């Protein structure tokens, strides 16, 4: 009798599975406690948390875009360049059409996403290769159309010099500040959750990631669905670019450099497998928040930026190795 009890594992497999679901929540709690212990009130202050609340939304929206694509088993690494491109077109749109010109930025993001989707599903080029090419192309396009200069958003109190392109939009700048940016982000998060969990398209993302061939054999037009998936992700990037424009106060050709990796990391930190079929909006938010907090905490603790990057990389691998059920993974590519 003692034999059987002593041989029983500490946790049943079902309990281990449940724990895995909570890894992102445990991770973020540990990270917060760690930085609180290291930096005390400089980290755990209203001022700093307001700062984090302002820094996270752009990353969160980009992580949503990535989540849409990753759930289907594809990946979109063009979102950093798309962010810069869309922000630029949003700024240009505002120069041309006034306030509502901001929509041009969202549509531009959707356009880039649609092009991604068309290339992937019609030319049948893997998403990694297609979006890598688009990453390079769109960054070049931004530099070409901007001529290497930035467009600034001003509050109208100072008139720009003759050489500087600027748009006067104080409302946009205040949108980039707490609490407006936080309310906007929370609203988008709720809408994203409804889209991802409750709509037929949201479920189609999971099915596509689960087994594309089955869908095709049952008569689903997978080509169209894939184009829509990348278009939807692109629209989300377009929205993120508007928030980034508000936040940064400028559309610059360098905007969003390497941010696609942060977005992928945020999704992965949320425990979403990059192989597709599964995902969670809530845990993706936690992932984005974790990444923002770690970056912020390391800066406050005085860790040099390059070492911060190393720490983020280590965190990513640790989080994934714990959350991934490796007993179910038979092929690693």
């Amino acid at each position, binding site marked *: 009798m003692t034999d059987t009890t002593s041989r029983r594992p500490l946790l049943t497999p079902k309990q281990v599975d449940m724990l895995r679901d909570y890894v992102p929540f445990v991770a973020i709690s540990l990270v917060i406690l760690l930085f609180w212990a290291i930096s005390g009130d400089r980290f755990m202050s209203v001022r700093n948390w307001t700062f984090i609340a302002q820094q996270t939304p752009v990353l969160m929206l980009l992580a949503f875009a990535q989540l849409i694509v990753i759930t289907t088993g594809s990946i979109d690494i063009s979102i950093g360049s798309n962010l810069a491109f869309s922000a630029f077109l949003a700024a240009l749109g505002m120069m041309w059409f006034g306030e509502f010109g901001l929509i041009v930025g969202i549509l531009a993001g959707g356009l880039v996403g649609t092009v991604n989707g068309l290339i992937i599903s019609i030319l049948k080029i893997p998403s990694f290769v297609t979006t890598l090419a688009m990453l390079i192309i769109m960054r070049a396009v931004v530099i070409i159309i901007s001529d290497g200069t930035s467009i600034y958003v001003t509050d109208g109190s100072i008139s720009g010099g003759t050489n500087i392109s600027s748009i006067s939009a104080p409302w946009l700048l205040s949108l980039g500040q707490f609490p407006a940016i936080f309310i906007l982000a929370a609203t988008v998060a709720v809408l994203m959750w409804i889209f991802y969990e*409750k*709509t*037929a*398209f949201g*479920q*189609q993302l*999971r*099915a596509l*990631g*689960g*087994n594309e*061939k*089955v*869908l*095709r*054999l*049952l*008569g*689903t037009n997978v080509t169209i669905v894939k184009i829509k998936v990348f278009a939807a992700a692109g629209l989300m990037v377009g929205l993120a670019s508007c928030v980034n424009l508000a936040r940064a106060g400028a559309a610059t050709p360098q905007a969003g450099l390497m941010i696609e990796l942060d977005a992928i990391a945020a999704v992965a930190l949320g425990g979403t497998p990059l192989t597709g*079929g*599964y995902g969670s909006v809530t845990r993706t938010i936690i992932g984005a928040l974790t990444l923002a907090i770690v970056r912020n905490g390391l800066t406050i603790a005085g860790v040099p930026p390059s070492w911060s990057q190393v720490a983020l990389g280590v965190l990513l691998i640790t989080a994934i190795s714990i959350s991934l059920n490796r007993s179910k993974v038979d092929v690693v590519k």
Partner: protein
Amino acid sequence: MNNGDAAPPLLSVENVSKSFGGVHALRSGSFNLQRGEVVTIVGANGAGKTTLIKLVAGAHVPDSGRIMINGLEVLRSEHSVANMRERGIEVVYQDLALVPNMTAPYNLFLGRIPRKWGIFVDERKMRIKTREVLDKLNVTTVQDLSRPISSMSGGQQQSIAIGRAIAWGKEIVILDEPTAALGPNETAEVERIIREVRARHGTSFILISHNLDQVRRLADRIIVIHHGVTSREFKREEVTSDRLVKAITLGE
């Protein structure tokens, strides 16, 4: 051809062929299916069985030959899975029947997700209908409808796959090796479902099977396909297993 007194068969496949990249997957496939009949297709691996049913299902367009439903030819432009499903023809493919990460209701409604207000999933309707279908098939093993299919046994998964085909396949249900991956009890269960549905609803079945005992238990007629040609046809009562093996391996 019809004399007016005999109704045309529910399905009539006439000399269909299909090749992929110059390789003949099917040279000439012909067979009929009457309403309420169970026809099995037997043949060696690579003989062209799956290609033949994919043509009937609309997943491939035949290179030549024609397919008639109720005496009316299926036009090339109509040859799609969506159109064939619209006409009440459903297939359960051997390894490609289900999406493993989705729940039973989603798998039952794959490609036909009911919607509320155009964009939202009507989950309640899906759950009710799934229960109905499982009850209709007397499947009692699937209880928790919120679990992904991948966490269920092979028999439970196959019940759901066949349930989907039977739920939507008002005319013809095509099953590709439905019991190949199942144990004896689960095989008996699937065979029971096929018999009951046929008896109660008059559904017609096309069955691919390697299990000759099963073929002789279920089939009214047996079509032998050999090297891409539907070479022989037998009535169940007039054929022995030995005779079938000879036809499958030698085409005689």
